[in-house]
């Protein structure tokens, strides 16, 4: 494939039918009202010269290269800022226009270095292109230093780890400033000075790195010259070919062009036609891909008999036969149910599918779970109970039509940045925002964004809050009775339940820490403000009442009729790239692919016939159950696919004890991660750049993951699974990942119409994709719910048993930051560490003062299960009595602190509520954080 250069229409598309007909250079064209003449010309096949225009930014009209002549209009209007009109007759080329354009170009070139042959943007520079297009042959004013006053000596800012700002090449077109504003919404960049002194600046007197810039890359992408340029391009040269693929970071699932020179990846450029991102990106997807070629990568299989032994590099044959033999030996000694596997939300659907198939068909049990257990399993449970489908209801674009956006326990500008930018765009256009979160996230207040209400609740009181909001809806006559009557069931019982006085805002204000007045105001706004859309994250699910809260949100959406159309819905923001897909693929121990219970004889029969083996009809072990069973001795071998459970799962010492008790631990991963320290077999995995398959994002969008390069390990991960299965005596074979998807489609009704061919043709498909919805389903539950009627569920608030005490008086809650991802296995191996070299503890100044703690001090953080040390950061983002940290660095070990409390329905850990104490360390140690397990099983 050659380098893919997407067409640039100059200005954004306008919605509506193409009802305006005009003529451009004699070519008739029809476009929607509001379209610019420049864009209409492009549709007519006419490229109008331009520099300051690009089609993901509103027209600016500064460069004057795009001037045209229009019959009946005076002068030479800019085609980018001139809207089309019926019957317009436009001329884009004649002698007069050419002369004017050359005059403009002369001015640009007179203040631009003429180093094109050695410039890093040579061949990818719009200024260079326009010099050619306009026929520039001379610069009458001279160029560079000969032209008098100029900007040739302007300094280069190389402070950002990923791109340079070479100010001497800036043409002050403002595309970068506008991209930061209109696309990203951070407004970090500005034009400083006036007239000749105008220059791009990242804040006042600070470098790009020191500024508010979030390194999303939108400015780099927008820059028409070499002014903002990836360091990788400067170092390696212009790429020569592109592969369209999907980002392997968060659940937004951005599409990218991987641009290479030969087999070397030069840069990742967000793909305009990407259904989830439409050309935007964040610092992780855009730049943080270096981990894939990091020297820490393990490329050869390794084996050892005991975890006390050194690793021994072995051939694939030996690693696979060792694994298969040990698994069978352990089953023979301890029973069929003594082994199991954990699938990964970072691997492809096809890889996950083969692992769960190996467990069910080859291991002969249902001991398969996924790392979604510890993040969004309550979503699966709660939405299935109420709506009948374990998935979010909307596509991302739906937020463009939301009038009230209710964000609960999510921090999209950090954890789902590209969707966060889209959400901010909608809020800036007038949508109201309600944030329910203990912490004041950037969404609550940032440039041009301010929440109408921030319900700064105490951690662990989500259900009390959502019930109180629903109480207001019911008791103030705000129920959408028509919707409820026609679309739902069990409403009357729920209505009686939720109207009880104990759910009134006034009854829970002290408990939740949110005033009754604010709860009532937020409820009224959500119920009456037009389209109400709920977006939520792990701040909802990772609680002992996570499933209850998901059902509470579903109740609220149904009661107000905010389901089944654009602009509304209940939408989980998934943490990892393929959380949705790993769940869809039958990773849960009680569900076959498509969320169908293992006890369903009809469903099991489909797989039994295809796989040629009987399947168990009883659920298997969930991850926490596996740990418990490992400790009690009934579970002896575990296969872990691409997850670092030793770092990511709660109550580290409990996890360590479980892993240490296993007779066989097989880890399939890119690195020797924390879990691998307990492993007997390490099977090297493939990075997303090597995989061939699909990811499914938070909006149920199935995207192709195309191999950018051959697997560095020599094998696709699904091939390894097949070989283990074969070595265990089961004939499992696929010719390709596409063939695996064909089997998924054959056996899973919601994937019936999905194939690699269909995905290549459509770009992406949102499931369900079947006979009724051959093109997929962007919005769910439009006519009826998946289960028929939406079901109201009574959501009793049961407080967590994890409460602050005299010994542990603070509540720790955890979260993520923009530059890092999950346990940091990937991002810590990139330059992103420049922004977050360590996890820190946010502590309210009041809580710090009474402990004698100052900003930057080293503190001990202890809970009833463990203790660690971090540096403190004083912050009023969190309320008094609450502290906050991230879990991106193993040295800090945030999960040494978290407990084994979990959601009652799904066992999802309660990461978000841990009673802790924070103490100033008398003699601050060098920050090689120490971790210490306290007495296991300490009482609450």
């Amino acid at each position, binding site marked *: 494939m050659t380098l893919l250069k997407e067409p640039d229409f100059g200005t954004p598309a306008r919605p509506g039918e193409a009802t305006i007909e005009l003529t451009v250079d004699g070519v008739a064209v029809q476009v929607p009202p509001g379209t610019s003449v420049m864009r209409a010309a492009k549709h007519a096949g006419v490229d109008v010269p331009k520099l300051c225009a690009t089609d993901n930014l509103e027209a600016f009209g500064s460069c004057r290269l795009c001037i045209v002549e229009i019959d009946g209009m005076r002068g030479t209007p800019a085609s980018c800022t001139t809207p089309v009109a019926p019957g317009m007759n436009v001329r884009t080329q004649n002698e007069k226009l050419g002369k004017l354009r050359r005059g403009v170009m002369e001015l640009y070139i007179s203040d631009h270095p003429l180093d094109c042959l050695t410039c890093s943007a040579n061949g990818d520079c719009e200024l260079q292109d326009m010099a050619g297009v306009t026929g520039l042959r001379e610069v009458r004013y001279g160029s560079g230093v000969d032209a008098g006053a100029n900007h040739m000596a302007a300094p280069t800012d190389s402070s950002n780890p990923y791109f340079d700002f070479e100010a001497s090449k800036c043409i002050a077109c403002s595309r970068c400033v506008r991209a930061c504003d209109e696309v990203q919404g951070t407004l970090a960049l500005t034009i400083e000075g006036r007239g000749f002194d105008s220059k791009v600046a990242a804040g006042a007197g600070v470098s790009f790195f020191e500024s508010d810039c979030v390194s999303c890359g939108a400015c780099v992408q927008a820059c028409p010259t070499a002014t903002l340029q990836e360091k990788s391009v400067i170092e390696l040269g212009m790429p020569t070919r592109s592969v369209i693929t999907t980002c392997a970071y968060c659940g937004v699932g951005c599409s990218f062009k991987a641009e290479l020179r030969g087999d070397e990846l030069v840069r990742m450029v967000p793909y305009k036609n990407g259904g989830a991102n439409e050309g935007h990106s964040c610092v992780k997807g855009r730049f943080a891909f270096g981990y894939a070629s990091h020297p820490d990568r393990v490329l050869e299989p390794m084996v050892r008999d005991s975890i006390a032994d050194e690793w021994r590099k072995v051939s694939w044959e030996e690693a696979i036969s060792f694994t298969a033999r040990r698994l069978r030996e352990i089953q023979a000694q301890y029973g069929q149910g003594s082994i199991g596997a954990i699938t990964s939300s970072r691997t492809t659907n096809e890889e996950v599918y083969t692992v769960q198939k190996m467990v069910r068909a080859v291991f002969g049990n249902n001991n398969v779970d996924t790392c979604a257990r510890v993040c969004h399993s309550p979503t699966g449970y709660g939405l299935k109970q109420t709506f009948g489908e374990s998935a979010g209801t909307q596509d991302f674009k739906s937020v463009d039509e939301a009038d009230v956006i209710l964000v609960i326990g999510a921090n999209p500008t950090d954890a789902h940045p590209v969707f966060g930018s889209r959400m901010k765009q909608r809020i800036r256009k007038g949508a109201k925002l309600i944030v329910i979160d203990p912490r004041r996230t950037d969404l609550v207040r940032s440039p041009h964004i301010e929440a109408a209400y921030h319900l700064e609740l105490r951690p662990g009181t989500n259900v009390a809050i959502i019930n109180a909001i629903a109480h207001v809806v019911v008791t103030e006559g705000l129920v959408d009775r028509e919707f409820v009557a026609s679309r739902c069931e069990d409403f009357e019982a729920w209505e009686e339940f939720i109207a009880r006085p104990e759910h009134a805002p006034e009854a829970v204000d002290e408990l939740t820490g949110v005033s009754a007045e604010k709860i009532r105001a937020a409820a009224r706004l959500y119920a009456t403000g037009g389209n109400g859309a709920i977006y939520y994250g792990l701040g909802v699910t990772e609680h*002992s*009442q996570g499933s209850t809260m998901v059902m509470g949100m579903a109740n609220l959406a149904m009661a107000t009729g905010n389901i089944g159309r654009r602009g509304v819905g209940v939408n989980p923001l998934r943490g990892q790239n393929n959380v949705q897909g790993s769940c869809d693929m039958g990773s849960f121990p*009680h569900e076959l692919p498509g969320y169908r219970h293992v006890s369903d004889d009809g469903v099991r029969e489909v797989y039994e016939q295809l796989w040629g083996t009987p399947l168990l009809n009883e*659920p*298997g072990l969930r991850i926490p159950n596996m740990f*418990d069973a490992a400790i009690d001795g009934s579970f002896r071998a575990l296969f872990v696919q691409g997850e670092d459970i030793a770092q990511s799962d709660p109550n580290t010492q409990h996890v360590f004890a479980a892993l240490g008790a296993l007779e066989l631990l097989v880890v399939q991963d890119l690195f020797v991660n924390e879990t691998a320290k307990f492993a007997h077999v390490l099977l090297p995995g493939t990075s997303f750049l090597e995989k061939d398959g699909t990811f499914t994002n938070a909006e149920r969008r199935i995207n192709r993951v195309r191999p950018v390069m051959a697997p560095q390990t020599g094998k696709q991960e699904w091939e390894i699974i097949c070989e283990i299965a074969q070595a265990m005596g089961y004939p499992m074979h696929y010719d390709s990942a596409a063939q695996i998807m064909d089997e998924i489609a054959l056996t899973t009704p919601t994937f019936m119409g999905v194939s690699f061919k269909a995905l290549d043709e459509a770009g992406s498909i949102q499931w369900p994709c079947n006979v009724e919805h051959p093109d997929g389903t962007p919005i769910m539950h439009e006519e009826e719910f998946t289960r028929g009627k939406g079901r109201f569920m009574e959501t009793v608030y*049961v407080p967590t048993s994890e409460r602050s005490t005299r010994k542990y008086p603070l509540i720790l809650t955890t979260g993520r930051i923009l530059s890092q991802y999950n346990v940091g296995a990937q991002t810590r191996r990139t330059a992103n560490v420049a922004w977050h070299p360590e996890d820190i503890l946010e502590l309210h100044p009041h809580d710090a003062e009474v402990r004698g703690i100052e900003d930057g001090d080293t503190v001990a953080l202890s809970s009833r299960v463990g203790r660690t040390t971090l540096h403190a950061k004083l912050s009023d983002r969190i309320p008094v009595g609450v502290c906050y940290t991230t879990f991106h660095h193993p040295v800090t070990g945030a999960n040494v602190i978290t407990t084994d409390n979990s959601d009652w*329905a799904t066992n999802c850990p309660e990461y978000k509520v841990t009673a802790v104490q924070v103490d100033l360390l008398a003699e601050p140690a060098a920050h090689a954080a120490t971790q210490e397990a306290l007495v296991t099983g300490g009482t609450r």
Partner: protein
Amino acid sequence: MSSSLPPHVRLANEIAAQFAHRPPAEAATAIATHMKTVWDPRMKNALIAHMQAGAQDLDPVAALAAQHLAAAK
């Protein structure tokens, strides 16, 4: 509540708390259904054994649910 309880007992008690607002017989049926849906057999068996041993640390409604599980075996 103490984490010295076996995991299946602790979890059963936590589930029972979620259904405490419903009549005991109805709650026990719902809890047993939930456990049948998502619990591994060894957890169900361990809970049944715990109930049959007459342990006092099991919530009465959870114990009733365990009886339902035992009857369904």
